[in-house]
């Protein structure tokens, strides 16, 4: 999180509980997210009307699994085809290395100004801060990202970065930072941003974008968008740099239409986005526009570690639609910034621990009621609740230990408590006498049990154990003349 200018609101996953507390007490945040998420959920539901959704999800999962099964081969094939098309391919072990690669490309062109299309990977690696330290201005061009950047914030949603802001707040930001009139007229504000950003597109030395799907078979980079800023970013400046995680590759071109259909409907309930932009080479001889140089930066940043484990592997299927956060009762209430990570919501809670380590993110896997909504709506059927449970286990040292920071939440007290419980529960005699004693002494149960009793009354052991009740019941039933009473009791 280094390199952020002073005064910027900073959120960190270490402070999840405090940030959640603050967000829950902020009626504006609650209202903005509630309204947006309700709309997104109903739009998604309607958008799959014509489809056999289960079959399509099955295919989506299958395409992603196939890509992951052949990942190293596909990455090499992607590289070979991109290079053959004239796209230069770079590999980065982590975000810092990726930042360095992008900066060096910029410097080799003497670039002072970079225009950016939406890219969560570039957020993940803090590219803007890195470029600015090197004296290169990086300007976001997606309207939501632009607003968030003007307001010195980070995105609160991976698809709709400015979802936490309402019209009045946005009007105020544009007025303060760009001198527009205060107005609730969305068309006016949009037109103003268009005007401001068009100048910047023309002046930009380099365009930086993300990638939604990278097609190994043809060496094609696919970008999904509505605004046209992605097309501008990848067409107007003389140099285009695309940054993406190594998991974004798909095998064939025919794999793309089903994933695209799933992505747009799951993300915003749209049957299609305005633009689907497929880039396979820089400007060729005789062509009149488009960048003369195209670079692809493939970023690992912990992904190859996730790849090692059969269960965790499913995390890498993600196509970044955001449906899991749109449907998450926790995300909807605490908002995106609370998580303190680039990727918020359920996908963030299963991805961030690998990118940042459980030391930083230990609270995120518990930021879920395990209601299962995220897994049900995931277009590629990632078993998100299972992965949350797995990371909970890892955080207390009960997993395989292959997640960075595994065991960070393990405490002697908790281990001893569970060991004791385990012993008790597997020794019936001790269990029975133990519970009987607890029932007798129920009046002594403390009324305050830490945070648990902040909003609840303390539980008391029952006077008679369930076990004893059942026994008594069975004893009384054995005196019944026939089994008819059994029916009546129902």
């Amino acid at each position, binding site marked *: 999180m280094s390199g952020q200018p002073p005064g910027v609101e900073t959120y960190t996953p270490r402070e999840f509980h405090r940030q959640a507390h603050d967000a829950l007490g902020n009626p504006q945040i609650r209202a903005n997210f509630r309204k947006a998420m309700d709309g997104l959920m109903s739009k998604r539901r309607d958008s799959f009307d014509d489809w056999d959704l289960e079959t399509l999800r099955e295919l989506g999962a299958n395409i992603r699994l196939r890509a992951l099964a052949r990942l190293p081969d596909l990455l090499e094939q992607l590289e070979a085809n991109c290079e053959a098309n004239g796209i230069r391919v770079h590999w980065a072990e982590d975000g810092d290395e990726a930042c360095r690669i992008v900066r060096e490309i910029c410097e080799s062109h003497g670039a002072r100004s970079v225009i950016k299309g939406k890219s969560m990977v570039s957020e993940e690696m803090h590219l803007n801060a890195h470029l600015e330290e090197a004296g290169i201005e990086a300007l976001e061009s997606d309207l939501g990202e632009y*607003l968030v950047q003007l307001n010195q914030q980070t995105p609160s949603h991976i698809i709709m970065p400015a979802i936490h802001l309402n019209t009045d707040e946005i009007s105020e930001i544009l007025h303060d930072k760009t001198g527009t009139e205060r107005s609730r007229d969305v068309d006016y504000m949009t037109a103003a941003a268009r005007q401001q950003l068009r100048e910047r597109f023309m002046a930009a030395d380099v365009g930086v974008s993300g990638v939604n799907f990278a097609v190994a078979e043809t060496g094609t980079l696919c970008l999904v968008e509505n605004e046209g800023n992605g097309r501008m970013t990848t067409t107007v400046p003389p140099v285009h740099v695309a940054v993406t995680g190594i998991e974004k590759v798909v095998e064939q071109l*025919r794999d793309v239409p089903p994933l695209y259909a799933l992505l747009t409907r799951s993300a915003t309930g749209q049957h299609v986005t305005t633009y689907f932009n497929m880039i396979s080479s820089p400007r060729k001889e005789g062509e*009149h526009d488009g960048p003369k140089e195209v670079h692809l930066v493939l970023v690992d940043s912990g992904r190859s570690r996730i790849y090692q484990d059969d269960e965790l592997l499913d995390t890498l299927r993600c196509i970044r639609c955001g449906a899991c956060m749109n449907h998450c009762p926790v995300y909807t209430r605490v908002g995106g910034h609370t998580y303190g990570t680039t990727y918020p919501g359920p996908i963030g809670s299963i991805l961030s621990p690998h990118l940042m380590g459980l030391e930083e993110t230990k609270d995120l896997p518990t930021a879920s009621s395990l209601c299962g909504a995220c897994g049900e709506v995931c277009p590629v059927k990632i078993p998100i609740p299972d992965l949350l449970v797995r990371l909970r286990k890892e955080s207390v040292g009960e997993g395989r230990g292959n997640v960075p920071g595994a065991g960070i939440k393990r405490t002697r007290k908790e281990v001893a408590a569970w060991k004791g419980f385990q012993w008790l529960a597997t020794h019936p005699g001790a269990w029975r006498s133990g519970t009987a004693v607890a029932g007798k002494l129920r009046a002594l149960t403390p009324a305050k049990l830490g945070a648990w009793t902040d909003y609840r009354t303390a539980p008391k052991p029952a006077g008679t154990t369930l076990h004893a009740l059942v026994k008594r019941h069975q004893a009384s039933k054995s005196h019944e003349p026939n089994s008819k009473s059994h029916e009546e009791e129902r």
Partner: protein
Amino acid sequence: MSARNAILKRLRERLDGPLSAPESDFTVATNRGWSQEERLARFERWIGSVHGEVVHVDEARWTEALAGVLADKGVRRLALGKRHPVAAEARSALADADVELVDVDRDIEQWQREQFESVDAGLTSTRGAIAETGSLWLWPTPDEPRLISLVPPLHIAVLDADTLADTFFDVVERHGWADGMPTNALLISGPSKTADIEQTLAYGVHGPRELVVIVRHAGDSAGISR
């Protein structure tokens, strides 16, 4: 070891062993079996739902429809190609019209500001369209470069009704996209839009505010019922 080799090595020496790749069944993405009328109706409904305007016209008289659109929208400067039949026919039909024709077969570096600031509309051909989503597909060429469907505030696209396919998957398969992709392939489904300000839809945020699709029907087509 280079980052490349280190990453590939880790992926290849996977802790839990090699993975087996499943076969995929793409049936759900194809075989819609729509009639031409259904295709047209779907295309028009979907592109209309995102503010795309559709004008149906007999192919022999399509340039009259174009002139009508230009007049309606108050277009004074129209950017268009030269060689593609759509561009060539438009040029000859508009030779005497009160519309200035702007050549696009120039390197963008020579006329960027002009393109951004003083072109009212861009005219392009299309290679086809997709009924299921109301999408046009374009492979920009030196004759019709990438930016003329993006930078001017109005994009006029000419579509032949018989190039309409059912699904994106069908287009990719039947037109052999995998055999050779162009520099840039595009699906365009409506004018540029955003909902980044409190979910309120606004058009023309970066690209065109308006998209007009002139759908050309072969002489005896039943599609021009309106």
